[in-house]
């Protein structure tokens, strides 16, 4: 089976489902939202060599730019007023496009200024007197990113923020970015589950080891791909490889497949398994899932990263 052909079909469907405002909803014929628009435009960009996607991509870019708030962030749904984790996604996607320097810089500055409260010095001090400190035994000095501002650090939003920083023009990164990245990487390594992989960010609660999940593991590994070899990465890659035959949902399968390919661990069955779902099932799961599958099927994708010739040794 030619994976390129199937990616092309997924991209055609995505393009057909684009709303008139340039965005996509989580499901077809629903109002546009930022997250599915980010994934859809990434998939179309990867598939858009022949130029037939350029109009859709331009419209999607307009949708994203039109929905940026004056503070620099994006909200999950246009009518919301508080920025959240989708800002990282938009920043990563728009950073790959020319002419978006100003909005992405505003977004990056907002991201760099968004500190989770759980790791603030004051709360850490107060927690040292509380019994709650014994419930989750992770290190609280690391600061990543939360799903919403001024809450707690979690694995996936931290991974997305790292991905945004990696896509951003390194010369224009705010001065605090290097420190934030270092702390975020420390957080990811600290939050890894004992048997490898990540869940939302609770590796151990009440002394019981947390079980890893596919999506947080894959996103964390993708965000750590350029870093030197580390026990957490090798353990988690091994965990993810072991999960592959058991993964039943197309979304997790696509993202896990992209992750493993990023590390040079290609799954021979991946494309045919994804192909077997059919477009109808993918649409039922959501536009973002269709876009993930489209990206996973596309050998020419650039983002989320596929590192040519730089594979981590097993």
């Amino acid at each position, binding site marked *: 089976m030619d994976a390129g052909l199937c990616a092309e079909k997924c991209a055609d469907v995505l393009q057909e489902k684009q709303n008139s405002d340039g965005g996509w*909803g*989580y*499901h077809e014929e*629903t*109002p546009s*939202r930022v*997250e599915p628009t980010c994934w859809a435009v990434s998939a179309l960009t990867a598939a858009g060599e022949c130029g037939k996607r350029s109009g859709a991509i331009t419209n999607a870019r307009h949708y994203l730019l039109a929905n940026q708030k004056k503070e620099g962030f994006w909200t*999950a*749904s246009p*009518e*919301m007023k508080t920025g*959240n*984790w989708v800002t990282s996604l938009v920043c990563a996607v728009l950073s790959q496009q020319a002419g978006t320097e100003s909005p992405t810089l505003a977004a990056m500055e907002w991201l760099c200024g968004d500190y989770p*409260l759980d790791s603030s010095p004051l709360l850490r001090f107060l927690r040292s007197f509380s*019994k709650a400190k014994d*419930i989750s035994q992770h290190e609280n000095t690391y600061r990543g990113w*939360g*799903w*919403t501002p001024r*809450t*707690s650090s*979690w694995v*996936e*939003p931290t991974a997305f923020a790292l991905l945004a920083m990696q896509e951003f023009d390194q010369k224009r990164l705010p001065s605090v970015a290097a420190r934030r990245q270092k702390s975020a990487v420390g957080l990811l390594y600290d939050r890894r589950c004992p048997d490898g992989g990540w*869940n*939302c960010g609770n590796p151990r*609660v*009440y002394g*019981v080891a*947390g*079980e890893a*999940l*596919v*999506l947080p593991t894959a996103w964390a590994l993708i965000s750590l791909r350029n870093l030197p070899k580390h026990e957490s990465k090798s353990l988690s890659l091994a965990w993810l490889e072991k999960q592959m035959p058991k*993964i*039943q*949902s*197309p*979304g*997790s399968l696509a993202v896990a497949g992209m992750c493993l390919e990023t590390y040079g661990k290609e799954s021979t069955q991946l494309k045919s398994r994804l192909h077997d779902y059919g477009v109808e099932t993918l649409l*039922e*799961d*959501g536009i973002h*899932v269709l876009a993930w599958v489209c990206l996973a099927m596309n050998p020419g994708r650039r983002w989320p990263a596929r590192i040519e010739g730089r594979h981590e040794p097993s």
Partner: protein
Amino acid sequence: MNLRNRRLIPSFQRPPSRVLIRRVADYQRDLEVLIGESIMEFRLTIQGKTVLLKPNLVGLDPLGVMNTHPAVISAARTSFLRLGAARVLIGDGPAMDRDTHAILESVRLREFTGKLGADFCDLNLDDVERVILETRASKLKELYLPKTVLGADLLVSMPKLKTHHWAGVTLSLKNMFGIVPGSCYGWPKNILHWAGIDRSILDINAAARPDFAIVDGILGMEGNGPIQGTRKAAGVLLFSDDPVAADATACRIMGLLPEKVAYLARAGTMLGHLDPQKIQQLGETVESVRTPFAVLPEFRRLVEEAVE
């Protein structure tokens, strides 16, 4: 009248609530008949209505102790359709894992219900609408809630009978955390923890109070719930037209004092009845099905002395 147009009635203005306890040994028996007959006892207005079943789908659950059992969900769906509902939707927004498809596969829901298509709604990804939280129990002030929930005529909370490591117990009211969309607030919905779990439960239920509760206590979870606890068979299904009364009764079955569960104590003034005098007990008695559940040391205060 759908949930958008409802006015919150304080507990003292509410008529007595009813709770029906049915003894059910396992998930093998004919739940459709049992659940259908049990719902009929309450004489709900179902004809032509859109019913939303809100089960507790938490995560991958190969042992079947974490999530509402698919046999119960499917039987409830069939029952409401037979009783004249125009449409019965099933919806949840799992809190820890955004791959709802994987959770559905893990619980084998579609094996029981058949193809659901648009009749299943991933509430994490649904279109949202701003809701001002009139009760202000927490600092949240507003939430963006799924339109599918707000548009339902009859909202049915279908929790699993479980202890919970932050809230004490997770039942009909705590189950409503699942209507808060992850796409807006994340996985987990951490903003609710920061606003105070107990207080958030009150605000969410005041904004979208379940009309009916079906508690899956055939097999529950004790100890470090809602995910890492231990399987506990209680052999009951609970039905109630008042989620507070359902939860209070469930606590009593678990050998716990509902008055000492912080959010339930306050819910007893706002959302329904906690006081046994205001609850008409149908079916089995609490005493006849009482099955003490173990709790974490932090929640020893909830345990009824008489059953210690």
